[in-house]
C-alpha cells in the first residue's frame, strides 16, 4: 500500500492550493503510491473476476438435451427446462420461492423441495419393492448421486423410480401453483396451463438433479452438495468446511494487520495544527442555482417512493403473518405476494437512487464554486421526468407481465423476473440511459473544474464514482431470461453485490467526504486520503467477494474458496470505518466556533452517523454472520438473510439517502419554515423502527428457522407449513409496533419535509455570472476573530480560486502555539 509516510510528506506545505502545473491543471494532491495502489487492487480484483466468469461458463451444470428413464421413455427435453425457467421468471416465481436458495422466502426453495419430495418417493418405492427393501437408502442415494449424463449424446438417464417421482411431482406443482382459492401468496389460478406446469416441473427437476448428481471426477454435486438432504447423502463438502475456517483466519489477520498499521503510521495525516477557523454560511445566505432548486422535486419523489416502498413491505410482510387475507380483504387477487415483493425490492433501489441523483445535481455547482451552465435545470427536470416514466412503466409492466398481458413481449415490457433485476428489458435499458444522462449532467456542471484538475483529485473522483453507477448497473443486461441460472446469477450479483458492497460504498465515501470539504470542515487532502484508503480496502475484499453469493448456485469450488476468503476481508473496512466515521465527523468539529452562525447540518450528520452504525451492525455483523460457507450452506435463503438485507440496505443506503435529503433541504426550505422537530422525529423513528424489525422478528425468526434447517432439513424449514407454524407467526406479528413507528414516525415526517421543500422552495436563484466562491463557508483570519467576529473576513469570493487562477492566494491555516 505504498509508503503512507511519504504520502503525507508529499503534500505538506500548502495543502489545498498547490500551484498549477504547466498545463494549467491543479496537480495531484496525493502521493502517487496511493493512486497506484488503488488502481492495482481494483485491476487485480477484476482480473480474477474475469477468470471466474470464464470458469462459470466452463463448469456450470449442463442442461441435457433430453432426460429419459431407463426404459427409454422421454421425460422432458432441454428446451422444456429452458421454457420452464422462462415460465418461472415470467410468472414472478423468483419473487415467491427460490432456486438454489436464490429468490424470495415465502414459497418453497424449488430445488430443495423437488429434491426432498422426489427422494422421498424414490426411497418409498424401493422400500415397498420387496426385493431390495433393506438397502432402499443406498439405492436412492445411487439414483441421485450417480451422474448418468452423457455429454456426447446429450442424454441424461433417470431411474424408473425417479421417473415416477417426476410424474407425481408434476401433479403436485400443478396443485401448488394453480390453486383456485389462492391463499398461498400467489394469485388464485396463477399457473394452470398443463404444458407450463410440465416445463416448470422439468426446471425444478433439473435443478434438483444438479444439486445431488456428482460433478464428473468429483465426489460432490454441481452445487457443492447444497442443499443439506440426508435422503441423498448431501452434506457439506470438505471445501465448505476448510474455507470457512480459512476465511475466519483471513479476517482476523486482515483486521489485526490494518489496525496495527494504522496505529503505527499516521495514514491520514491528521494533526491538530492544520485547522482553519471558518464561518458557516447560514442557509438563508446561500443562494442556490436553478438546477439545485429542481432537486426539491427529486427529494419529494424520493420520499413518496419510500412511503410506497415501505407500505408494500408491510403488505409483503402481512403474507408471512397471515396468508389467508389482509384483515378480511383477499389481497392476493389484486396484489399477490410475488408482485408486492417485486415492487418492494425494485422501489428500494429506485428511491435510494433518486436521492443519489439529486445529491449529485446539488453538489455539482458547489464543486464548481457556484458556476452552472445554461439549461442545467431543464436537463435535470427532464431527468426526473424520465425517471418517473421508468419507475411507473416498469412497475406497471411487472404487474401486466406476470398476468401474461404482454404475450411474447413479456420480458421486454413486463418483467424479466431475476430478483432485483425484475424490470422489463426496455425499462432496464432506459434506466441505464437515465443514469448515463445523469452523469452527462454532472459532467456539464463540473467540466470547468474538471479541466483544471488532475484526474487523481476530488472533482474527478466524484465524477468517476458517479460514472461507476450506470456502468455496473448496465452489467445486468448480460443476464436474460434465456441465460442459464448459474450464468444469470453470476451477472446479477455483479450488479447487486458490486453496487452495494463496492461502488455505492465508494460513491458514499466520496460524496460524504466532499460534503465535508464543501462545508469547510475537512481538508481536501485528508478527504482524498480517506477516499483512496477506502478504494483500496473496499476493493481488496469486495470485488472478488462477490462470489459469497455464489457458493451453491452451480459454480465450481474455486468460487466458493475465493468468495469466502475475500468477502471476509470486506468486514475489515467496516470495523475500521466505524472508528473513522466518528473521527471524520469530528474533524470538522470545533469547540469554539468563532462564528455566530451555527453548524446547519446537525441532522444530516446524525443520519450519516446512523449510516456508520448500520454499516457496522447490518453489513458487518449481520453480513458476516451468514458469510462463512458452512453457515451459508444451511442458512441461505432463510430469515437471517432478510435480517441482514434490511439492516444493511435500509440502514446504510436508506439512511444515507435521507441524510443527503436533509443536507439539501436545509437550503431548499426557507429558514422560517425549517424546524428540527421533523428530522428529529424521523431520525429516531427510522432507527428504532429498523432496530425493532431486526431484533424482534428477523433475527430471532431467522435463528429459529436456521435451527429448523439443522433439525428437520432445508426443504422443511422453507415450507409454508413451517412459516405458518405458531412459533414463527408469533414472531412475525411481534414486529408490528416497530413497523408502525417506522412508517408513521419515520417516513411520514420525511415526506412532509420534502413537501415543504417543494412548496416553499427558496425563491431567487444565484446569478450564474457571479464570481466563483466557496458557497457554504467563509474562512476567517483567526487573530482578528478573537476581537471581532465580523472583522477581517476573508471572503473567498474575492480570491477566485480554482480554475486556471488557482493558487493566487494561500489559504489561511491557523497555527496555534
Amino acid at each position, binding site marked *: 500500500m505504498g509508503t503512507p509516510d511519504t504520502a503525507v510528506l508529499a503534500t505538506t506545505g500548502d495543502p489545498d492550493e498547490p500551484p498549477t502545473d504547466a498545463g494549467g491543471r491543479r496537480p495531484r494532491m496525493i502521493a502517487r503510491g496511493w493512486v497506484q495502489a488503488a488502481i492495482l487492487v481494483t485491476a487485480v480484483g477484476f482480473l480474477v473476476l474475469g477468470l471466474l466468469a470464464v470458469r462459470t461458463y466452463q463448469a456450470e451444470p449442463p442442461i441435457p438435451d433430453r432426460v429419459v428413464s431407463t426404459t427409454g421413455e422421454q421425460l422432458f427435453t432441454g428446451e422444456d427446462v429452458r421454457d420452464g425457467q422462462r415460465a418461472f421468471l415470467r410468472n414472478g416465481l423468483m419473487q415467491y420461492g427460490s432456486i438454489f436458495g436464490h429468490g424470495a422466502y415465502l414459497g418453497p426453495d424449488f430445488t430443495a423441495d423437488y429434491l426432498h419430495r422426489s427422494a422421498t418417493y424414490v426411497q418409498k418405492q424401493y422400500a415397498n419393492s420387496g426385493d431390495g427393501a433393506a438397502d432402499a437408502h443406498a439405492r436412492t442415494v445411487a439414483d441421485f448421486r450417480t451422474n448418468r449424463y452423457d455429454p456426447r449424446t446429450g442424454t441424461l438417464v433417470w431411474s424408473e423410480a425417479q421417473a415416477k417421482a417426476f410424474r407425481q411431482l408434476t401433479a403436485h406443482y400443478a396443485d401448488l401453483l394453480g390453486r383456485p382459492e389462492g391463499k398461498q401468496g400467489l394469485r388464485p389460478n396463477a399457473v394452470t396451463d398443463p404444458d407450463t406446469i410440465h416445463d416448470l416441473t422439468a426446471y425444478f427437476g433439473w435443478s434438483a438433479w444438479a444439486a445431488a448428481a456428482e460433478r464428473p471426477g468429483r465426489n460432490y454435486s454441481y452445487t457443492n452438495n447444497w442443499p443439506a438432504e440426508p435422503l441423498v447423502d448431501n452434506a457439506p463438502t470438505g471445501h465448505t468446511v476448510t474455507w470457512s475456517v480459512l476465511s475466519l483466519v483471513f479476517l482476523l489477520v486482515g483486521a489485526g494487520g490494518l489496525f496495527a498499521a494504522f496505529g503505527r*503510521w499516521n495514514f491520514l495525516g491528521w494533526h491538530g495544527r492544520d485547522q482553519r477557523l471558518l464561518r458557516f454560511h447560514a442557509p438563508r445566505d446561500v443562494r442556490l442555482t436553478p438546477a439545485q432548486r429542481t432537486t426539491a422535486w427529486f427529494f419529494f419523489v424520493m420520499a413518496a417512493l419510500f412511503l410506497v416502498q415501505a407500505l408494500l413491505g408491510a403488505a409483503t410482510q402481512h403474507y408471512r403473518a397471515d396468508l389467508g387475507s389482509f384483515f378480511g380483504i383477499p389481497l392476493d387477487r389484486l396484489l399477490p405476494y410475488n408482485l408486492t415483493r417485486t415492487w418492494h425490492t425494485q422501489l428500494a433501489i429506485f428511491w435510494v437512487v433518486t436521492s443519489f441523483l439529486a445529491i449529485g445535481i446539488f453538489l455539482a455547482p458547489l464543486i464548481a464554486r457556484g458556476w452552472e451552465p445554461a439549461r442545467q435545470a431543464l436537463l435535470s427536470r427532464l431527468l426526473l421526468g424520465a425517471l418517473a416514466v421508468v419507475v411507473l412503466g416498469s412497475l406497471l409492466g411487472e404487474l401486466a407481465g406476470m398476468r401474461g398481458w404482454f404475450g411474447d413481449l413479456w420480458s421486454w415490457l413486463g418483467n424479466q423476473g431475476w430478483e432485483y433485476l425484475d424490470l422489463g428489458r426496455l425499462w432496464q435499458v432506459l434506466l441505464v440511459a437515465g443514469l448515463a444522462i445523469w452523469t452527462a449532467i454532472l459532467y456539464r456542471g463540473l467540466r470547468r473544474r474538471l479541466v483544471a484538475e488532475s484526474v487523481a483529485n476530488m472533482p474527478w473522483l466524484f465524477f468517476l464514482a458517479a460514472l461507476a453507477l450506470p456502468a455496473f448497473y448496465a452489467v445486468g443486461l448480460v443476464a436474460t431470461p434465456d441465460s442459464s441460472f448459474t450464468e444469470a446469477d453470476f451477472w446479477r450479483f455483479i450488479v447487486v453485490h458490486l453496487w452495494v458492497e463496492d461502488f455505492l460504498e465508494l460513491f458514499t465515501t466520496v460524496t460524504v467526504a466532499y460534503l465535508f470539504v464543501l462545508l469547510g470542515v475537512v481538508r481536501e487532502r485528508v478527504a482524498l486520503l480517506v477516499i483512496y484508503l477506502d478504494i483500496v480496502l473496499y476493493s481488496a475484499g469486495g470485488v472478488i467477494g462477490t462470489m459469497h453469493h455464489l457458493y451453491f448456485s452451480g459454480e465450481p469450488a474455486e468460487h466458493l474458496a475465493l468468495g469466502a476468503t475475500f468477502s471476509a476481508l470486506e468486514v475489515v473496512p467496516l470495523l*475500521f470505518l466505524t472508528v473513522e466515521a466518528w*473521527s471524520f465527523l469530528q*474533524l470538522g*468539529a470545533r*469547540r469554539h466556533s468563532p462564528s455566530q452562525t451555527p453548524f446547519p447540518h446537525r441532522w444530516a450528520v446524525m443520519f450519516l452517523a446512523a449510516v456508520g452504525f448500520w454499516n457496522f451492525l447490518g453489513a458487518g455483523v449481520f453480513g458476516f454472520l451468514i458469510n462463512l460457507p458452512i453457515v451459508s450452506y444451511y442458512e441461505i435463503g432463510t430469515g437471517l438473510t432478510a435480517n441482514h438485507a434490511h439492516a444493511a440496505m435500509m440502514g446504510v443506503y436508506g439512511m444515507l439517502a435521507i441524510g443527503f435529503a436533509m443536507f439539501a433541504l436545509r437550503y431548499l426550505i426557507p429558514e422560517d419554515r425549517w424546524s428540527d422537530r421533523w428530522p428529529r422525529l424521523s431520525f429516531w423513528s427510522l432507527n428504532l423502527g429498523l432496530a425493532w424489525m431486526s431484533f424482534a422478528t428477523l433475527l430471532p425468526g431467522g435463528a429459529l428457522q436456521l435451527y429448523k434447517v439443522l433439525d428437520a432439513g432445508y426443504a422443511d424449514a422453507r415450507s409454508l407449513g413451517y412459516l405458518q407454524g405458531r412459533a414463527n407467526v*408469533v414472531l412475525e406479528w411481534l414486529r408490528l409496533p416497530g413497523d408502525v413507528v417506522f412508517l408513521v414516525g419515520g417516513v411520514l415526517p420525511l415526506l412532509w419535509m420534502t413537501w415543504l421543500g417543494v412548496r416553499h422552495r427558496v425563491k431567487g436563484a444565484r446569478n450564474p455570472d457571479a464570481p466563483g466562491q466557496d458557497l457554504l463557508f467563509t474562512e476567517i483570519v483567526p487573530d482578528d476573530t478573537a476581537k471581532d467576529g465580523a472583522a477581517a473576513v476573508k471572503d473567498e469570493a474575492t480570491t477566485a480560486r480554482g480554475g486556471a487562477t488557482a493558487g493566487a492566494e494561500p489559504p489561511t491555516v491557523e497555527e496555534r502555539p
Partner: protein
Amino acid sequence: MRGEAIFVVLYSVALLGVVGLLEFYARQPTSAWASQVFAGYRRAVPDAPRPAGPDEWPHSEVGRFHRALSLFVAVIAVLLVSAELVRHHRPLETLALVAVGAPHAVVVHRLQRRLRRRTAPANGADHGPGGEGGAH
C-alpha cells in the same frame, strides 16, 4: 421445558448481551484522539490536541443513540418473554422466563429514566459542533 420456551430464554439472554454491548459502545470515547486505534499516533505526536469531551456535539449523541437502541432491545425482550409466558407457563418455564425477563425490565426502567433526564434540557436548537480543535 418446551423448545419454544428454551429458544425465547436463550434469545433473551443473547439480547442481554446486545444491551451490554450497546451500553459498552455508548460509553466509548468517539473522539479520534481518544481512540485506541490512534494510540501509536498519539505517542508519535506529543502535542496532539485534547480529545473532545463526551458532552460535545456530536459525541454527546453517541451515548444517547446507543442507549435508546438498547432501551428498545430490552423492551423487545420484555415483550417476547411476556408473550411466551402467555403461551407456555409450566413452572420451570415460568421460572426461566421470569429470570431472563427481570434484568431486561430493570434495564428498561433505568434507561428510560436516564434518557428522560438527558432529554429534558432543550436540545432542539442547532448547536455548533464542538470538538478537538479547541484551546488546550
